[in-house]
């Protein structure tokens, strides 16, 4: 059987424009939250988000490093984040200059939950105020979700499978899982896989606020607003950015002496079949996805050392925790579980991939990232190590990463260290 390993990582997050900066800030319990700077929020119910910082910020993102000026002008920010994260991952894997044969066996599976909402919003205004002949000729292909995969394939000449998942907040995890299957099935030897999002724009913020999904009670305390598993939690904080990994067939990676971060051993998918925004109250879908991923991995409770929770800082956290307990046991089989959304907010379609990378770095450095703001843990959290406030050194050999999305779509990944 063909095995799939991770050989490259790329991140653009509210805590950094690259992997090591983002990770160092996460482990140092820093928060990426603040007042929204991208637009005037004075008439909005929510005024805070975890934005990717400009390049002059101490942990800002410089789009000029890997994305052509012309492309930056034509596409929405989620595509810029995705192209850069993919470039980082390829460079990290030593695959940014592939030979022509490998290019035929290398593909992309980089998705997004919502796609180019800021551009849809702004061009709608152009259409209304100035007419159809002023709409940008780059409008459509600068907003489409599959255009990260498209742009990256063009930039690096990748002619393998070109795919883009759209499953709301499960996108990043599904992207990695689907791409791993493409490698297992022999469709490719190398896949760039991940997700990106950037919808901190008036329409995006207003839409999530009207859906009562966002924290709107802590606009004056942005770094405290994302507080998964805390009694005072009151909705999620929007984040933006991208996470992309290089997945590679194990023998291929070994033969070229690649640095191997982890193996993708389990992938589970399910649907809640319940409600468009609310998770099933008994968490049945989440449980199905986790059990499927563990079964594929040939693992049971006790094998998992760290769970990166979906943990959005909403009422759904309770449902997820109950489901994880049913799968792993009341003490999670000794695993630690944290929600890194407490630090970077909810990256929606990027979340699953960014969090999978955090899981991989937890295994690399044998340290689990914290759940910030967990001052007053909710009922049901007793006996569970939710890693409050501070990162924790511990053995991490295998991890479970959960992602759940609107529409009732669930994905779980199990990754493990390769000896």
């Amino acid at each position, binding site marked *: 059987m063909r095995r799939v390993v991770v050989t490259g990582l790329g991140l653009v997050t509210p805590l950094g424009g690259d992997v090591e900066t983002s990770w160092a800030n996460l482990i140092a319990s820093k928060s990426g939250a603040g007042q929204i700077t991208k637009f005037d929020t004075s008439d909005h119910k929510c005024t805070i988000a975890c934005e990717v910082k400009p390049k002059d910020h101490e942990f800002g993102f410089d789009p000029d490093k890997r994305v052509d000026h*012309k492309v930056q*002008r034509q596409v929405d920010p989620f595509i810029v984040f995705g192209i850069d994260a993919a470039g980082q991952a390829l460079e990290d894997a030593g695959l940014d200059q592939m030979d022509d044969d490998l290019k035929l066996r290398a593909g992309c599976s980089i998705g997004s939950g919502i796609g180019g909402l800021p551009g849809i919003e702004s061009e709608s205004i152009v259409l209304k105020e100035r007419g159809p*002949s002023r709409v940008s000729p780059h409008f459509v292909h600068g907003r489409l979700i599959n255009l990260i995969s498209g742009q990256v394939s063009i930039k690096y000449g990748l002619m393998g499978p070109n795919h883009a998942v759209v499953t709301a907040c499960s996108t990043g995890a599904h992207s990695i899982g689907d791409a791993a299957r493409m490698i297992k099935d022999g469709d490719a030897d190398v896949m760039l896989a991940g997700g990106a999002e950037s919808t901190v724009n008036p329409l995006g913020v207003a839409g999530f606020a009207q859906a009562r999904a966002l924290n709107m009670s802590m606009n004056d305390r942005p770094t405290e607003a994302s507080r998964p598993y805390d009694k005072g939690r009151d909705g999620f904080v929007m984040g933006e950015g991208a996470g992309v990994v290089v997945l590679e067939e194990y023998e291929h990676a070994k033969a070229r002496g690649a640095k191997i971060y982890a193996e993708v051993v389990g992938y589970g998918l399910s649907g809640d079949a319940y409600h468009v925004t609310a998770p099933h109250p008994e968490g049945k879908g989440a449980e199905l996805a986790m059990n499927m991923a563990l079964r594929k991995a040939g693992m049971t409770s006790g094998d998992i050392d760290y769970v990166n929770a979906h943990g959005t800082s909403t009422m759904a956290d309770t449902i997820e925790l109950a489901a994880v307990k049913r799968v792993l046991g009341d003490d999670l089989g000794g695993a630690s579980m944290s929600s890194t959304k407490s630090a970077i907010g909810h990256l929606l379609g990027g979340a699953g991939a960014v969090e999978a990378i955090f899981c991989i770095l937890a295994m690399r450095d044998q340290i689990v990232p914290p759940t910030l703001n967990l001052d007053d843990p909710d009922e049901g959290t007793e006996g569970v190590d939710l890693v409050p406030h501070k990162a924790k050194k511990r053995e991490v050999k295998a991890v479970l990463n959960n992602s759940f999305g609107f529409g009732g779509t669930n994905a779980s990944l199990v990754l493990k260290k390769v000896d």
Partner: protein
Amino acid sequence: MSDTADRVSKIVVEHLGVEADKVTQEASFIDDLGADSLDIVELVMAFEEEFGVEIPDDAAEKITTVGDATKYIEEHKG
């Protein structure tokens, strides 16, 4: 360089992300400056905005160099 040529060059540099010294009047948008057909549509829109001229599609199709654009604008601007 005329004022029109100067402003045309600036728009081309900004939209195509090319070095200013490559944007000569003789430079072809596609062959020399890496533009594609959609980039030219966008450039024409930008010229229309900047100079308050209307460049119909049949005229736009004949604009292949920076100099073509400058000439058309100088002949048609108000």
